[in-house]
């Protein structure tokens, strides 16, 4: 009995290594090959990478910019991860995001006279709903006709692209400037996410205090229980270290917010990741989603309405992507302009896979890709390396995560762990 905690501990590290070994290996291999490419093109990889790092994490404003870049990526990674869990490949996150972004912009510039605490949430909610509705289309097509969501979402991306192009060039075009640009007018101040910073800060401060009080209460309560079971305080701490750290994450985040290092959008994104994690792991709906993805025949046997779950999954997935677009519009861009959002939905695929489709894994993955986006300008400026090299490295990461056998071989990661079923349903209909 005495050795049990120790074996548990090594088991824990082994499990951790098994689950994050491949993504970490993929990142390192991608950076190494990126370095070789830099060498061949005559640049100094060390200089380039250090400039990249400087540009991403070198100071308060850089970190702030990295987290800003990471925000929509978290949403899209989540959208794609959730669909994966139900055995679906939502390539349409891009289209859902674009709709979310433009609807949020529309609410932002067209609805007038609302106070900020109504206007900004309204813009977000409408953007999210737009994404959800758009996501429901491939969900219904899949559930009722068996049409592959891979194909329909790709096509719906084009529909979204052209629809928004038409909107920003026509009915919703910004007519305030002399030269007409394909973009919407700027959203009102009241729709911007960081309005009333002082008030939200105060509000958050109150919530934070309540949160801490709750944590302390729970802590003391379970501590008492443990003490009654005859264990020492020390044992209690070692056993609960993980949950303690998790409990501290919100405190750290809010601290960063109060220090003006991150935006409200990032907080919403992280909250969304925790929500999706909770949904998948702790709720009956999550169980239904995972069962449909893991074995749809058994799901039918268990009395789960597979068609409904597929639609619902795509609705939530679209909602997340749409929310990502809305946050981007109201928190960063201030208007909808097609060029702003290019490729964000597709980056979501990379992030989801780097995070091994785990909702919380999306956060570090998004910060990584966000940092590369944020730092690439500095790299171009200081090391004279074209910033497209960042795209190459990102593509290599995706390549190595997908071709995980290579990474496994290089790192000698033993054992077959759970493969994400990316291909369920492909070619079966």
């Amino acid at each position: 009995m005495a050795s049990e905690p120790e074996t548990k501990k090594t088991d824990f590290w082994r499990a951790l290594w098994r689950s994050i070994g491949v993504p970490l290996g993929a990142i390192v291999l991608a950076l190494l090959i990126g370095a070789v490419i830099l060498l061949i093109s005559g640049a100094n990889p060390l200089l380039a990478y250090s400039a990249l790092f400087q540009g991403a994490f070198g100071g308060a404003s850089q970190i702030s910019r990295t987290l800003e870049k990471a925000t929509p990526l978290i949403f899209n990674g989540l959208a794609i991860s959730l669909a994966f869990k139900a055995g679906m490949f939502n390539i349409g996150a891009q289209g859902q995001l674009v709709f979310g972004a433009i609807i949020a912009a529309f609410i932002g510039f067209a609805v007038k006279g609302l106070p900020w605490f109504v206007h900004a949430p309204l813009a977000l909610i409408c953007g999210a709903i737009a994404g959800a509705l758009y996501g429901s289309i491939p969900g219904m097509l899949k559930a009722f006709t068996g049409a592959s969501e891979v194909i329909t979402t790709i096509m719906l991306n084009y529909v979204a692209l052209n629809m928004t192009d038409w909107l920003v060039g026509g009915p919703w075009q910004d007519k305030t400037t002399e030269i007409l640009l394909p973009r919407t007018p700027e959203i009102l101040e009241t729709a911007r996410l960081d309005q009333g910073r002082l008030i939200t800060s105060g509000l958050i401060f109150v919530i934070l205090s309540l949160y801490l009080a709750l944590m302390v209460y729970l802590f003391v309560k379970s501590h008492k229980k443990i003490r009654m079971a005859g264990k020492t305080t020390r044992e209690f701490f070692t056993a609960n270290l993980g949950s303690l750290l998790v409990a501290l994450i919100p405190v750290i985040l809010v601290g960063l917010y109060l220090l003006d290092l991150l935006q409200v959008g990032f907080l919403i994104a992280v909250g969304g990741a925790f929500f999706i994690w909770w949904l998948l792991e702790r709720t009956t709906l999550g169980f239904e989603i995972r069962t449909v993805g893991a074995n749809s025949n058994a799901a039918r046997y268990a009395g789960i309405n597979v068609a409904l779950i597929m639609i619902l999954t795509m609705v939530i997935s679209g909602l997340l992507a749409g929310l990502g677009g809305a946050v981007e519009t109201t928190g960063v861009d201030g208007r909808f302009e097609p060029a702003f959002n290019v490729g964000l939905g597709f980056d979501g695929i990379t992030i989801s896979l780097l995070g091994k489709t785990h909702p919380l894994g999306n956060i570090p993955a998004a910060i990584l890709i966000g940092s590369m986006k944020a730092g690439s300008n500095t790299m171009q400026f200081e090391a004279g390396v074209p910033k497209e090299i960042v795209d190459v490295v990102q593509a290599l990461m995706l390549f190595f995560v997908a071709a995980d056998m290579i990474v496994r071989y290089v790192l000698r990661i033993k054992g077959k762990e759970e493969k994400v079923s990316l291909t369920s349903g492909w070619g079966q209909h």
Partner: protein
Amino acid sequence: MNQVPVLEVRHVSKQFPGVLANDDINFSLNKGEIHAILGENGAGKSTLLNIIYGLYKADQGEILVDGQPIELSNTQDAIRHGIGMVHQHFMLVPVFTVTENIVLGSEVTRNGMLNMKEARQKVTELSKRFGLEVDPDALIEEIPVGVQQRVEILKALYRDAKILFLDEPTAVLTPQEVGDLFKVIEQLRERGVSIIFISHKLKEVLAISDKITVMRRGKVVGSTTPREANERILAEMMVGRDVILTVDKEPARPAEKVLEVKDLTVFSDQKHKAVDHVSFDIRAGEILGIAGVQGNGQSEFVEALSGLRDAAEGEMILNGQRMPFKHPRALVEHAVSHVPEDRQKHGLVLSYSLIDNMVLCTYYQPPFAKGFNRQNDAMRENAERLIKQFDVRTPNADVKASTLSGGNQQKVIVARELSRPVKLLIVNQPTRGLDVGSIEYIHSQIVKIRDEGAAVLLVSAELDEIMSLSDRISVMYHGELVATMDVKEATREKLGLLMAGVTPD
């Protein structure tokens, strides 16, 4: 004259986790012979075939072609030794022509370029030589299934197959096409091709083969010829005459009617009428066994009753209440439990822990969920209790279902299905592929739930199982329940005849 067999299998054994799929198989095929291998699903026919075709490696034993031992590490080796396989599910490219499909993989080339003209000529020649009529330019997707099968046969012959395996070749054919296929098979025999014909259909086997080998539970139980055998003898050999299992049970005390089914008609995936106006009832405290040779509609029958398949006609009345079809959850909520035929397809989510699998159908009910929230402690407690109670051999409740042996996987399903109040238990092939210990345990649980007052519908192709467990027995043949009798009136001979479609008048 003592002829050397073209193919000989000596002492071949193959072990899968939890199942001995082939147990010391000996078998030989003479030149120009049509040799049928007869057996239920799961008897080990396909495993044997896959070993000879190089898809599986045998644990023991050797395979000889023309008296020479051969080494098989993949299908290319088998093809090189003149072995060809026609799979049950065709391996054809629908949008390619007949010629393209036949030459695919060993194309005729000239200077590295495809020479389709010569290929076409070769195919035409081949089809003439063996009397297999096909249009070499037709697209696969546009020709009927029977002709597609001919293309599969030509594909094997094109690769100089001297030994041809036909795996359940009639399963997908209409009766008319079956007749055509038999003509083709006879023509092939005349031209010296030796054929292994896998089937579980007695009539066909008697009609076409020169020799019949019967397999059961991974063993060869005997060989015979159509002259010596008849359908009854074959049926008996297939389902076994040796009573290896006896179940201790009290006589049934049937009480009120639990399930009443009227005029149930169900269609198969191929839109054939699989179940044809079946009516029956089961009372509380009795086991109704459905006997029958596999493929007579039992799967569709159970799927309809367990909510997995829609019924075309008929009604299902449970405790006086009419139940909807295709609504598994309604059945769960009316105390119907179902141990499905395919435990890995329907019964379990292999990537889930036992904790999750043990609540697969009731995950949303208290105490496993409060509203939206799943209750981990309650689910864990449930799994640990059931593992203990049903003697599931597992390190703990957290392991994935995929890590368990077949017997223990089945115990997980049985435990789950019996862990809630049961008024009707539907079990289909509950012990297929299991070891004797697990079989005994599962049998005793079925009897126990009967004694506790549940009605049990047992569907099995194992005659032993049916006879030792049931209180009443119905025989299913071609989608109909052709007879129902008390177990005391049932004899092996009587059931065997009924299963073969011979109705006493």
